[in-house]
């Protein structure tokens, strides 16, 4: 039954380019690199199109390969000793603050400071709304590890957010009290 599904490359690009690009950008913190990764991932998909059995399989495959490619890119960058978030701001002139709320922008910046495994779990959980079991399957990691990364990542991100966004938290508290 699954083989009745006929993959259409252009349609898959339309449906998933935003997901692939966002995952790569949040994992690497580099817009240019995210574009390169997204392009590589889709070209790899094109080569493997015959093995894709369903729309859900395509989505799973894209998420898995994007996360894997992003991790590879991060490792290469670590070897080169670059600060990804600083590079993003300096070289691409992208101000995250322009695009989203101040808290959202700050959360994205803080996300980039988390360990890679925690960042991957959080991005898949809150960007893609995936369950820990789905994240485990995508990252090919034990469910317990993913749950632990989610908890630790969330705690760490919250702590960092509280430190960095005192004004925002205070503002929220005033608003609640008011």
């Amino acid at each position, binding site marked *: 039954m699954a083989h009745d599904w006929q993959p259409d*490359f*252009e349609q898959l*690009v*339309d449906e998933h*380019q*935003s*997901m*692939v*690009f*966002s995952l790569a*950008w*949040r994992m690497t913190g580099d817009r240019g690199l995210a*574009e390169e990764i*997204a*392009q590589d991932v*889709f*070209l790899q998909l*094109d080569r493997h199109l015959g093995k894709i059995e369903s729309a859900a399989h395509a989505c799973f495959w894209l998420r898995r390969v994007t996360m894997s490619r992003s991790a590879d890119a991060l490792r290469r960058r670590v070897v080169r000793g670059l600060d990804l978030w600083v590079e993003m701001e300096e070289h691409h002139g992208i101000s995250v603050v322009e*695009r*989203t*709320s101040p*808290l*959202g*922008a700050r*959360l*994205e910046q803080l*996300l980039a400071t988390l360990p890679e495994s925690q960042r991957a779990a*959080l*991005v898949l959980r*809150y*960007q893609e*709304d995936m369950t820990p079991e789905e994240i485990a399957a995508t990252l090919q990691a034990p469910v317990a590890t993913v749950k632990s990364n989610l908890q630790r990542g*969330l705690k760490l*991100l*919250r702590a960092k*957010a509280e430190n960095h966004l005192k004004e925002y938290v205070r503002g929220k508290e005033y608003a609640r009290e008011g």
Partner: protein
Amino acid sequence: MEEFEQELRQAFERRPAPTSLKRRLMESRRTRQPRSHAFRLQRLAAAILLTAALGGGLVWRNREEQRKGEAARQQVLTALRITNRALNQMNTQLAAHGRVQRQGD
């Protein structure tokens, strides 16, 4: 924590991909396919040429060996013919010499 998670969901919404991404992908796909098709044809042509060259070489070597064998056989036959003729002449001479001796006795 739920409020914070809600903030995260909002902050981590998917971002639109650059419009150039799809264009570059489709261009890359278009240019890659004919090249790979042409490359496949080139490989096939090269394989056919190589096979033909190897096959031709084997046939040529086989014929050359046959030709040399035939030439050697002809040489042996010629040598045998010459030897035979020489022996015949020698026999004729010996016979003539014997007749002369018998007549002298």
